[in-house]
């Protein structure tokens, strides 16, 4: 069973479109995260939710809106996609208290 699963794995779309990436974890963790990995493989946190509440919101354009319908899911919706949004987006989850995070396999977003 996949612990943290993201869909889709690949997403190719045009500038200006709106798209969503879904994430689900079956580990029973309380906290979920979204990270962006750029073309130089640098990883930076975007958002974190604990029990459906937003707790970390880094400097991310408000075109990015996370939504957590329950603590096992954290989806990422992106409006008006721009060329600079091309990256690999990783979802992760963890228990509270500094426990290690478990990552999904990533969604590679390419903007044409």
């Amino acid at each position: 069973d996949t612990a943290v699963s993201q869909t889709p794995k690949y997403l190719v779309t045009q500038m200006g479109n709106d798209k969503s990436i879904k994430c689900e974890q079956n580990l029973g963790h309380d906290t979920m995260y979204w990270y962006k990995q750029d073309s130089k493989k640098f990883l930076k946190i975007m958002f974190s939710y604990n029990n459906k509440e937003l707790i970390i919101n880094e400097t991310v354009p408000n075109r990015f809106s996370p939504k957590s319908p329950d603590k096992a899911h954290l989806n990422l919706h992106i409006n008006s996609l721009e060329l600079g949004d091309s990256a690999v987006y990783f979802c992760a989850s963890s228990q509270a208290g500094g426990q290690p995070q478990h990552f999904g396999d990533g969604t590679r977003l390419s903007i044409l």
Partner: protein
Amino acid sequence: AQSVTQLDSHVSVSEGTPVLLRCNYSSSYSPSLFWYVQHPNKGLQLLLKYTSAATLVKGINGFEAEFKKSETSFHLTKPSAHMSDAAEYFCVVSLLTGGGNKLTFGTGTQLKVEL
């Protein structure tokens, strides 16, 4: 504030020889430190973690890391490299926030293993 510096962007070793990936950290608090590995087109997998218990930490696949507070280092080692170790390695420092932990990643070290 916290930060991580990975001193080498690329490391190349021969199969069967030792691996050393270097990491220095900066943290205002007693840090939690991790090493993650990323194979091509895959997510990140936890190799090992340091959380203020033993300073020598053993991880999966024969890797280990030693926490040295005086040197603010957390270098990753393996006695004998295997071809399957070729991947990107990230040193990570963690800051606890309300309900979760905020990870700050190093810029990564790409490990190449040659025959």
